[in-house]
């Protein structure tokens, strides 16, 4: 633990923090789902929040995106402009609208009866509302709305191409195969124009080809918009490839924090994933160190 904190402290100095979670706690009745959890995510990076099943990852996500109100703690979002938002004080929709944090869901939540294109247009709701003079000017046929409407379709087209869904634009979202639905959900979140994109298990249930397409999309997101990504995974192998920074959660507490290489070799992480008793951790550490020595 001590070594982990020192490395983060070292990196914090040089990097621009986009999201800062401090002493986050979440209690459900008698259950402490998250206990004094702190971490930082940096601008332009892909940060992964990993941990075994039931570690509380989705709860952290729901706190960040406002679907749960945390029992304690502070979540600060710092935008590029330097503006800061305390996310635990905002209602959920304002977190997307003002703080510019967008999210996806573990069980995909698309508007399955709307077409793929419509899904992306709904995501631009706030922009279009403003352009349509809160419906009234738009209803009267003011040109400003027509222009905005055209632009919104262009933006949707851009993300459809990025997500390689352009051929399916006029099909109902519910008709897409699973992997395409995952990509559509990400494209939809990007249409809200976020600075931080939170992905809840984006690779779950994808086949290798779909995983590859997802990787392309995520790299595209970073390159095009410079948006930072925070993602949840429980599968370590996926995370290690794409993320710059990994935070490990177990039983609602942080057990490791650092770059993938560091986390991969952290005995506590290994113990958490292999599920060993506390007193066996020492043995695992010894084993890992032995293996590393062997490899060298």
């Amino acid at each position, binding site marked *: 633990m001590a070594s982990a904190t020192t490395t983060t402290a070292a990196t914090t100095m040089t990097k621009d923090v986009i999201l800062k979670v401090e002493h986050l706690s979440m209690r459900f009745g008698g259950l402490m789902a998250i206990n004094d959890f702190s971490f930082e995510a940096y601008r332009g990076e892909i940060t992964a929040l990993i941990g075994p099943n039931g570690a509380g990852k989705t709860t952290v996500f*729901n706190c960040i995106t406002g*679907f749960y109100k945390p029992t304690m703690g502070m979540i600060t979002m710092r935008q590029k402009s330097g503006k800061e938002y305390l996310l635990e004080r905002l209602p959920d929709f304002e977190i997307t609208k003002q703080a510019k944090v967008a999210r996806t*869901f573990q069980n995909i939540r698309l508007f399955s009866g709307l077409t793929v294109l419509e899904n992306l247009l709904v995501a631009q709701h706030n922009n279009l509302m403003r352009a349509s003079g809160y419906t009234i000017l738009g209803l009267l046929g003011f040109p400003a709305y027509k222009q905005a409407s055209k632009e919104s379709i262009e933006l949707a087209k851009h993300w459809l191409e990025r997500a390689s869904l352009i051929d399916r634009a006029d099909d109902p979202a519910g008709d897409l195969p699973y992997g395409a639905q995952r990509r559509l959900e990400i494209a939809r979140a990007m249409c809200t124009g976020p600075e931080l994109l939170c992905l809840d298990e984006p690779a779950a249930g994808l086949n290798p080809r779909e995983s590859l397409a997802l990787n392309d999309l995520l790299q595209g997101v970073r390159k095009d918009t410079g948006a930072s990504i925070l993602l949840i995974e429980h599968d370590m192998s996926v995370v290690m490839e794409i993320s710059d920074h990994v935070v490990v959660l177990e039983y609602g507490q942080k057990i490791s924090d650092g770059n993938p290489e560091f986390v991969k070799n952290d005995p506590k992480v290994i113990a958490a994933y292999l599920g060993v008793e506390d007193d066996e951790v020492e043995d695992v550490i010894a084993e890992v160190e032995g293996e590393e020595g062997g490899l060298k």
Partner: protein
Amino acid sequence: MQYFVQQLVNGLTLGSIYGMIAIGYTMVYGIIGMINFAHGDIFMLGGFAALIVFLVLTSLFAGVPVVLALLVMMIVAMLTAALWNWTIEKVAYRPLRGSFRLAPLITAIGMSIALSNFIQVTQGPRNKPIPPLVSSVYDVFGISISLKQIIIIAVTAILLTIFWYIVNKTPLGRAQRATEQDRKMAALLGIDVDRTISVTFIMGAALAAVAGTMYLMYYGVVVFTDGFIPGVKAFTAAVLGGIGSLPGAVLGGLLIGLIESLWSAYFSIDYKDVATFSILAIVLIFKPSGILGRPEVEKV
């Protein structure tokens, strides 16, 4: 004080009737998640069945004992209402199970309209008054309690005990509770889900028919529109108690009965239904799970 206790007794009587109807709502909602809008009309149908049996009895056997007459009325009404509800479930609700969720609600509303109009067409639109069946009134510490009220409360208590036994202690009740929890899993474990649902409708209708008989005896009149208001109130009772919960339905029924009679006694009889409906709205808005219901957790 005497006045208050008097109203309490009146409220309890009324509440027993609501409670018995509410059980049908709560059970059906629990097991297939639909508001059986036609349930109030099944209650009305039960009342009419009892009325006709009463007329048959009085015209065929002039000096029939009241207890026997009531028993026969109740049993025939239970059988008829059960058969109706069973048929309705099979014909109108079963084909829609697992489809679009609004469809069963619309069908149930359609059934409700059809049932009340069926009675209007076959039995005529007028009020059907009957001579009082039991008229003894006892004076207990200055409070007048009629035999009717005692019968209603006693019948409710007995039936609810039997009913509680069936649901909690028999394999049938177990199948019912299992189906309520998870229909698919219950089917996988060898429970005949269709049969269980049918039985639920039969039981609900039988209780509603008893309530209908009691209603006829208590007020001495029944009319084809009688299904709606008692139906909505019983539904309110089910919601107030926590929909899906059987003790909740009874408790809710009693509460609604009490509120209604106390409101009429102390405030305004004109606005008694407004009071009931307002309570329904307030409960649902502030505590949607009701008094004894389990709260529904929103999963993100």
